[in-house]
């Protein structure tokens, strides 16, 4: 049984997750730059997800092999985001629905 371990109690983790959720909701109403809000929200979400994985899913107390398997999607997900970067750079300007559905000039 992997449950026999010393560490913070489940209720401690619960209160951390609760507090971080409240901070997350508060952050979106803060009068700061949108990019700073985005960085803060993503950092808070990663912190919460890590707490769930490490303590509720017992990853902190498992073998290293299992930890490496579990972290694989994070690497592949990050890679996926970077793969999309050249596409974003190739877009000269953002488009709206009105532009997308407008018929091209010269077409009947």
């Amino acid at each position, binding site marked *: 049984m992997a449950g026999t371990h010393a560490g913070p109690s489940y209720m401690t983790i619960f209160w951390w997750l609760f507090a971080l959720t409240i901070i*997350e909701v508060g952050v979106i109403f803060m009068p700061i730059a949108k990019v700073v809000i985005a960085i803060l*929200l993503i950092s808070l979400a990663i912190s919460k997800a890590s707490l769930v994985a490490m303590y509720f899913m017992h990853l902190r107390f498992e073998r290293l092999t299992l930890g490496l398997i579990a972290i694989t999607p994070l690497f592949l997900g990050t890679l996926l985001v970077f793969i999309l970067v050249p596409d974003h750079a190739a877009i000269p300007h953002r488009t*709206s629905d009105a532009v997308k559905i407008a018929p091209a000039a010269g077409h009947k």
Partner: protein
Amino acid sequence: MSQVATMHPGVEPAESPLTPESWGKLGMWIFLVGDAMGFGTLLAGYGAMRYGSADWPNPYEHLGISLTAFMTFLLICSSVTMVKALEAIKLERPGHVKLFLSLTILGGATFLALQAYEWTHLIQGGLKIYGNPWGASLFGTTFFIITGFHGAHVTGGVIYLSTILAVVSKSRNTARNYLLTEIAGLYWHFVDLVWIMVFTFIYLL
């Protein structure tokens, strides 16, 4: 190292440093890794579409944060009751096991009911899978596909946990009950973990 390998030196050892404590648990982790890639792809696609759109609506102005913040709280609570059920098996308290597993199932079912309420409310307000009154039509498409995919996982989790509750209630084999509940718990916590990401990317950002 297995006894078979010690007794018969010519036999290839069946265990290695990579042999897991439980094959069932390893199987669930591998499934979750694949599932995480599915959610990751959906969220990356959402990001790409949103970045390329000039008229993407501001999510928290139209989707409503208070209800979904409560739904997040509900899933966190259900994760706590899940680990409490596991702890109760270890302490051999069958009454507590049933109570905590039932509370976890109730948390999941309430989450689904609130999601149905939210979807109904938003559809009546004009948010459709093919369009909406506020801007880019893909706003509704991505919202329903991603939250719907997660909702399907919660539905699967509620059915899975109900089955585990029925099995654990009948069996007195503590070690087996612990393993079955631990594996089901991994799935349930994953559903909670994914919601943390969905809540941030779809509702807050």
